[in-house]
């Protein structure tokens, strides 16, 4: 049989309209202030939106790992200074 991905409602996909804001864009808009202070962290958050990590269920452990990487981006910049 033809495999069909059912995790996302087909209707919701079908009925996607132009005024919908993508998660990537939402994060981009929300991180304007962060972008000035820590562009790497901001880029990292956008990449999480882009690769779908934010839309998937994450365990407590994986959230800890993501937070750790996010802080590394900030620390890296701090150390550089």
């Amino acid at each position, binding site marked *: *049989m033809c*495999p*069909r991905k*059912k*995790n*996302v*409602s*087909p*209707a*919701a*996909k*079908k*009925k996607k*309209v132009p*005024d*919908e*804001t993508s*998660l990537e864009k*939402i*994060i981009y*808009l*929300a*991180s304007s*202030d*962060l972008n000035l*202070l*820590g562009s790497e*962290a*901001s880029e990292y*958050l956008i990449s999480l*939106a882009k690769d779908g*990590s*934010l*839309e*998937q*269920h*994450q365990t*407590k452990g994986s*959230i*800890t790992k*993501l*937070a*750790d990487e*996010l*802080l590394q981006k*900030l*620390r890296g*910049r*701090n150390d550089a*200074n």
Partner: protein
Amino acid sequence: MMRIDRIELSWFRGAADSGVLNTGSKNVAVYGANGSGKSTFVDGIEYIIRNGKICHLQHEYSGSYQEKGVRNTHTPCDNVSQGAIYFDDGSFITAKIKPDGTFTISSTPKVLKSIIQSWNFESHLLRQDEVARFIHYTKGEKYSALLQLLGLDNLEQAAENLRQLGLSVITQSGIGTLRIQREQLIKTAEKRLTSLKTEDVLIKLNELAKSYSIKETAKEIKPLAEQIVAKIEKKIKTLEPEQNRYFVFKQILYEETETKLESMVSADAEAERRVDALLDIRISVLEPMEEFVGIIEDPEKEIQCPSCGKMVVGSELIEHVTKELEMLKEARAARDKAKSRREELVAALSSVLNKAADPFFRSWLESPEQKEFSILIERLHKFPISKPDVRWKTGDTDALKYVLSKLVPLLKEEAKHIPPSTKGLIDDRDFVNICLTLPEINNLDTFITRVQAVIDTLKKSEEFVREEIKKRAERILEEISIDIRTLWSKLHPDEPIEDIKLYAHTDVDKAIDIGLKFFGTDQPSPRLTLSEGYRNSLGLCIFLALARFEGGDDPIILDDIVSSLDREHRGMLAEIILQDLTGRQVILFTHEREWYSELHYRFPAAEWKFMVLRPWENPGIGLRWSESIYTLDDAKALLPGYPEACGNRVRAIMDTHLSLAAEKLKIPMQYLRGDRNDRRTCLDFLNRIIGEAPKRLKKKVGGSWSEYKDPISDWKTTRDLLVAWADRASHGGTLTAHEAEKLIKACEISLGHFKCKLCGDYMWIADQSSRKWVQCTCGELQWRYE
């Protein structure tokens, strides 16, 4: 199109060794009296979709894996219970359940399992007692139920991940501790520096540098300060032992051990007050609650407190847990502060002891005049400075207080005699050390600002995502609402319940509700004004609208959904199923004999299959299908012991069938007085059909229509048997089992005559709108009005 070809069950719920629902990939209507096993098939489907769970079996007695409810009670020892769904393309999914309830669900191909288990209940399966389930959901439950269907579950997950990520960043960055550390450093620096601005400090440092013969003007604090410290250290080494001793005095005083001890004692007392009173009790209360609060979907609903068992409103519990957590966090901060103060004191004491180990100082200390001094310094070694994590005992703090009260005045007295040159060096070094903390303060400042920016961004992102969810939900809900209104107007035309709509709450997140106009008055919920029957009707419309919105091609399973609808509305529902669910396989189960018969007579045989379950006898026999598509098995079930009752049941069943047949054939019935119109029997209808048939019933023979007499003689036989054996008013004798069996057979033959042997459809299926005739789909049988 994804169609179920058959469902096979073995020792599952009411099924014994084998129970098979063979749909032939068609739509199916299954009739069965109460308890005949219809829901066993629905349970089989639910068990597979919900990965080993059936909601209505969730009960303390059903066992950890619901094994006491899922498995047939008479399953032979060690037999595995099974359920399998086969699809029209050859794919299938099976569930095997061991005696202890552990199970495996697998599919061929593998991907089928995830597809089936992603079916949304709100648009796939509806049971009798759940027809109004969506209406009865709280607004939070409605939101959760619709999330996947609206395609917003991914965004909701993103919002939750962003929230969790924010909390994780707060914890992992230790931003609270960093802020305390920064404040402490600033407080100390402000004691010595008039301005903490880098440029002001640089001016002062550059001035000081000149006095140490550093000519170049520096632009950064750290390298300049380190350069000056090196010069000071060099000078210190050249000091006379006498002067060096003063240097040690001053350094020891600089540690401010008395102040630090006081800070530690006060922070310890504060922590003790907060922590001890709270920790044990609160943690025991909060531990079971923490996860629970996270899954409360509707704050307005009453729930059972997992700690004390009382019923409380969700919002109160959330508020309670939030407050408790805040108090715990304050207690934790107090504990951290106490620990930090202890570390500072321990560091200061270590530094004092380190400095006291200076050889010049030691030789001075060993002189007989300094015996008191020496004893006091020696006593400092006895305090628990090697274990900064361990809280000090009161005896230790009191003892240290005593030692310092003696030692510090002595030091101060000695320090008074310090030569000016040494004092200058000491002051300069203190000043430079303070200056050196400025880059650290700045680094902390920068890091804290960035961490706060990340936290703010994550919070803002979550808010934006929630706004987006709301925006999209509103648009999709409007689309669904239009469909609900269309279906409602078909089911309840010209009734003053209008403007039904699903709407997302503007002031509460994760909340959807149903609004409507009742006789022109806005109602925020159907529960306020609608009767149970109307709520069920509305629930049905919502289910069907959601199924249509999803637009997929998965089957829809309807289990006894018309119980609360009257005959008129059941007829309208049949029309909706026929017209509005095209493209979806419908598998419906009903115990309503009349409705089943109506569907049977209305729906085309090419698309619909009709099946009858025989009354269920015992767990060992399980599910059994009737060989007949009519519902006369309900009467047959009475045959062995109650042939008399069987006759009456036959007549009741025939009343339904023949009234429907007469209606479809538009046979005019004589008007009777009063309520006698509603009490016509099968004999009234059959007599009229027999009377009209010779001039109206035609059969195509070789391209032309001719009179069709065969059914008439069978109908007459049946009528005579019904008069003799199935009408209490007309016969006085007792009906035997043999006679009852003969009666049932005659009835089945008679009903079968309405059906075309070629196409399988009834003679009234086609050309319903024609004023001259109705006929079967292939045109073999025709009933003429003229």
